[in-house]
C-alpha cells in the first residue's frame, strides 16, 4: 500500500520533470545549447497562469492556452534576440547568455512579486480513496496530460515534415539549408514547442503546489537538466525516462532512508549511471571527426 502510494507520487513528480526535461532536450538536440533560462520560462508560465486566473478570472483551459502561447512567444523572441546572434560563437557564450536571461527573468518578476503568491485553484479537488491509497483528480490530470503531450510531441517529431526537419538539423546542420529548409524557422518552431511544454508544466505545477515565487524555476531547471542528460540529451524518449527515474530516486530514497540523505544518494546514483553510460541511458555517442 505504502509503496503504491509512493509510486503514484513518483508518477506525478516524474511527469512534471519529464515535461520540462523535454523542452531542454529538444532545444539541445537542435542547436546544442543548454538553455538555462528554461527553468525560468517554466516559472514565467506559472506566473502568467496566476495573473490570468487572478485578474481575468478565466477557467482552466483558457488559462492554460494563454500561458502556453505567451511563453512560447517569449521563448521564440529570446531565441531570436539572444541566441541566434551567437550561433557562430563558442557554445559557452550562448550558455552564459542563457544564464543571464534566466537571472534577468527571475529578478524582473521579483521586482513585482517579492511575496509568494497563491494561485487560484482552477480544477476540482476530488480525491479518490481506493483501499487506503489516495489519488487526486489533479494527479491523474497531470500524469494524463503529460503523457498525452509527450505522445503528440513524439508524433510530431517522427511523422511530420517539421519533425523531420528538426531531426535533420540535429544530425547535420550545414546540409539542411541546401535542401531548401529554413533553419531559422525550424529552430523557432522547436523553441515554441519546447517552451510551450515548459509553460504547461508551470501551470500544472502551480495547480499542484499553489504557492509560487520567482525562484521555483531554478531548482527544477537544474533537476530537469539532469533528467535530460541521464536519459540521453537530445533524445526525447530519454528525457521522459530521465524524468521518471529522477523522481523515483528522490521519492524512494525518502521513503526508505532518512530523508536527509536524499540529495546525496540522488547525485551519487547519477554519477554511477553516468559512469556506466557516459552518454545517458538512451544516448548515442556522437561521432567526433578528427
Amino acid at each position, binding site marked *: 500500500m505504502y509503496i503504491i502510494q509512493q509510486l503514484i507520487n513518483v508518477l506525478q513528480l516524474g511527469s512534471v520533470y519529464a515535461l520540462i526535461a523535454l523542452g531542454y532536450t529538444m532545444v539541445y538536440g537542435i542547436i546544442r545549447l543548454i538553455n538555462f533560462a528554461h527553468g525560468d520560462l517554466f516559472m514565467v508560465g506559472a506566473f502568467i497562469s496566476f495573473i490570468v486566473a487572478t485578474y481575468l478570472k478565466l477557467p482552466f483551459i483558457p488559462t492554460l492556452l494563454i500561458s502556453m502561447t505567451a511563453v512560447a512567444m517569449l521563448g521564440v523572441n529570446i531565441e531570436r534576440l539572444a541566441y541566434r546572434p551567437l550561433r557562430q560563437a563558442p557554445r*559557452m557564450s550562448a550558455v552564459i547568455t542563457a544564464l543571464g536571461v534566466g537571472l534577468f527573468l527571475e529578478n524582473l518578476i521579483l521586482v513585482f512579486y517579492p511575496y509568494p503568491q497563491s494561485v487560484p485553484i482552477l480544477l476540482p479537488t476530488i480525491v479518490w480513496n481506493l483501499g487506503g491509497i489516495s489519488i487526486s483528480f489533479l494527479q491523474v490530470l497531470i500524469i494524463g496530460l503529460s503523457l498525452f503531450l509527450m505522445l503528440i510531441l513524439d508524433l510530431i517529431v517522427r511523422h511530420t515534415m517539421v519533425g523531420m526537419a528538426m531531426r535533420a538539423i540535429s544530425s547535420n546542420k550545414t546540409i539542411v539549408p541546401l535542401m531548401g529548409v529554413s533553419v531559422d524557422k525550424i529552430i523557432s518552431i522547436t523553441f515554441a514547442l519546447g517552451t510551450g511544454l515548459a509553460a504547461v508544466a508551470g501551470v500544472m505545477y502551480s495547480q499542484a503546489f499553489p504557492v509560487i515565487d520567482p525562484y521555483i524555476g531554478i531548482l527544477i531547471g537544474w533537476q530537469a537538466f539532469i533528467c535530460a542528460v541521464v536519459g540521453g540529451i537530445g533524445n526525447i524518449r530519454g528525457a521522459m525516462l530521465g524524468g521518471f527515474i529522477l523522481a523515483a530516486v528522490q521519492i524512494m530514497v525518502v521513503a526508505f532512508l532518512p530523508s536527509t540523505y536524499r540529495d546525496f544518494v540522488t547525485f551519487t546514483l547519477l554519477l554511477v549511471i553516468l559512469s556506466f553510460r557516459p552518454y545517458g541511458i538512451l544516448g548515442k555517442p556522437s561521432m567526433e571527426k578528427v
Partner: protein
Amino acid sequence: MKITKVKTEEKSNARGVAWYLRDRWEAIANNRLMLPILLMVGFVLSFAIPQFNLVNPYVQIIIMYIGINIILTTSLNIVNGYMGEFSIGHAGFMAVGAYVSSLLTLYVFPRSLVFLFFPLGIIAGGVVAALVSLIVAIPSFKTRGDYLAIITLAFLFIVKSVLENISAIGGPRGIVGIDKLTTMPWVFFFTVLSLWVIRNFIHSNYGRGVLSIREDEVASRLMSVNTRQVKFLAFAVSSFFAGVAGALFAHLLQFISPRVFDVLKSTDILIMVYLGGIGSIAGSILGATIYTVLLEVLRPLGMFRMVLMPLLLVFLMLYRPRGIMGLRELRWFVPIQDLKFVKRWRRKKVSTDGNSAS
C-alpha cells in the same frame, strides 16, 4: 637584471597628442620592469592601507573580495577557458578549502599562534581541495562537454549535502566564530602567488597540453600529449586555488555554512570568467574586478540592480562572445620567447602575404 626591450614597430612620426600618448603607452607596456614595480607598489599599499586607513574599511573589504574573486576566476579559467571544459562545481572546491582551513585554525592549531599557522591552514585547504578534485577529474577522462557539466554539478550538490549532514562540523548551521585572519597583505600575497603559478602553468608544457585538449582532444592524444596527466594537473591546480580562495573567504567572513557555496556562487564565478574573457589571465583579473565593483556601485538602483546586471551580461555576450579579453593576453604576462615568436611569425606572415599579393 636584464631589461629586455622588445622593439615596437615604428609609429609614423608622432602626429599629434594621440600618437604621442600611444607611443608613451607602448614604451611602458613594453618595459618588462613594469610588472615587478607594480607588484612592489601593491605590496607596500597592502600594508599601508589597513594600517593608516587610507580608504575606509568598506572599501578595504571590497578590495579583499576583489582579490579573492581574482583567485577564483583565474583558477576556473584554467578548466573552463584554457581547457574548454564546462565545470560548474567550483564552489564545491571553495567549500572544501573553507571548511578544512577553518577547522584547522579553530581546533587543530595552537590558539595563541594561530596567525602564524594561518598560511599553513590555507595551503592545507588548497591541498585537500586538489585531492577532492580527483573525484571530478576521473569521470572527465570519459566524458566531455555537457556531461562533464552534470558531473561537476552533481559533485557540488554532493559536497553541499555531505556538509549539511555532518553535525560535527555544524551541519546546516555552519561554523561560527572563525578568526578574522585574512588581511590585505595575505590576500595580496595569495592573489599574486596564484596568478604567478597559474601563468607559469599555462605557459609550460602542461599548459600547452591544456590548450591542445581544448582545440582537439583526439588529435592531441595522437601527438603524444598525455591527456590524462594534463587533465589531472589542470583540475588539481584549479581546485587548489579554489580551496585557497575559500580559506581566505572563510577567515574574512568569520562564518561559513553549506548554503554559501551553492550553485549561485558557482554561477557568479562562471559569469566573472566569461565577462573578463576566457583563456586570459588579464581577462580574469578584469572580469573579477568589474563584476565585484559593479555590484557595489550599482547599489543605488535598489532592486533594479539585479535586473540590470544580467541584462548587461547578455549584451556583453552578444557583442563580445569570448569576453572582454577573450583569448588575448596582456603583454606582461606572456613570456618573452612567446612574444618574440609571435613577432617573428607576424613579420613572416606579412612578408609572405606581400609576396603572394605581388
